[in-house]
């Protein structure tokens, strides 16, 4: 199990680069939708203890909106797009053409819009993986939840927890030019998938 996580610096760089391109695709997509510049940082590719993952997004009790997609194909995994609640409301206001500060809770249409954003961002992100690996990563229909970060992260951590004590996380942070929107994009390959992706990239 842990052999799979035992990556050389070049392999880590390769993953980071793919994540970078994927995040770039996603940022471009989001930026075109909301008509604002989106900055993103260089993705973190890191092996973290499972219980430390909630700290990456502000602690287990931070209120966030999460859009979750399961990835099917030869290298299955999970995608989770997490936004602080404030950012999600701001994004919904932008998408719906409402004045900022209008949204105080998410109705059905708002949720639908956010799930669609999750869908578009994941598609753009996974495209990068396809172009480097030629492994199709097909996202499921998105699901959405607004709750405590720890609770939402459970869905990906439980799966990993069954296989080991650490999680390989490919994570990027977004920030819109006016600071209204920030978010975290997580790609968490299932145990076994990382090896397949690395092999397909062909670096040692």
């Amino acid at each position: 199990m842990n052999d799979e996580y035992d990556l050389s610096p070049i392999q880590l760089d390769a993953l980071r680069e793919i994540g970078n391109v994927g995040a770039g695709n996603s940022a471009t997509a989001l930026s075109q939708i909301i008509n604002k510049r989106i900055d993103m940082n260089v993705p973190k590719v890191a092996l973290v203890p499972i219980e430390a993952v909630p700290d990456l997004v502000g602690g287990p009790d931070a209120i966030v909106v999460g859009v979750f997609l399961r990835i099917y194909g030869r290298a299955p995994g999970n995608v989770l797009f997490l936004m602080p609640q404030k950012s999600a409301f701001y994004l919904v206001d932008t998408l719906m053409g409402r004045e900022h500060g209008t949204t105080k809770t998410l109705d059905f249409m708002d949720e639908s819009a956010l799930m669609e954003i999750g869908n578009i961002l994941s598609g753009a992100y996974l495209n990068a993986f396809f172009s480097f690996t030629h492994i199709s990563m097909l996202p499921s229909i998105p699901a959405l939840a607004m709750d405590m970060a720890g609770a939402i992260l459970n869905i990906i951590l439980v799966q990993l927890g069954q296989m080991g004590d650490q999680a390989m996380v490919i994570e990027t942070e977004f920030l819109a030019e006016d600071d209204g929107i920030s978010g975290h994009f997580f790609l968490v390959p299932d145990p076994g998938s990382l090896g397949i992706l690395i092999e397909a990239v062909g670096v040692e």
Partner: protein
Amino acid sequence: MANLIKVGMADYKVGRSPSTLISYGLGSCIGISLYDPQTKIGGLLHIMLPDSTQARASDNPAKFADTGIPLMLNDVIALGASRSRLVAKIAGGAQMFAFANATDIMRVGNRNADAVKQILRRNGIKVIAEDTGGNYGRTVQIDLNTGVYKVKTIDRGEKDI
């Protein structure tokens, strides 16, 4: 609030009055509190999965109900609690995302709740209060002075069980 002790995911802590043990942001995880009302000694365990035998090797027994509960039980007894007086309260076990074709792992909350109750029963510990299921997260805390187990949510208020 005197002495708030944080319990992380896949972790447990034991203590005595006037401490309060707290664990944040449980989804499908379960927070299990043990309490001896006479000595005011207790513990809080935050498990992620029901069964260590169905998982690959782990260095952390507190991640699973079947290995975590006996571990915490031993520790509270070592601290001076009496097994016969100990009572349990549990909360968590939600399914956070609604999926039409939810796999087993997405329904792990239910399995966690069942396993926890079964393991407590097997150890002779009575579950006197429970707040499990649903599709929302919970923060739980046990006040070791009173034995009150507080369950906080975002949209559904908080309650003492």
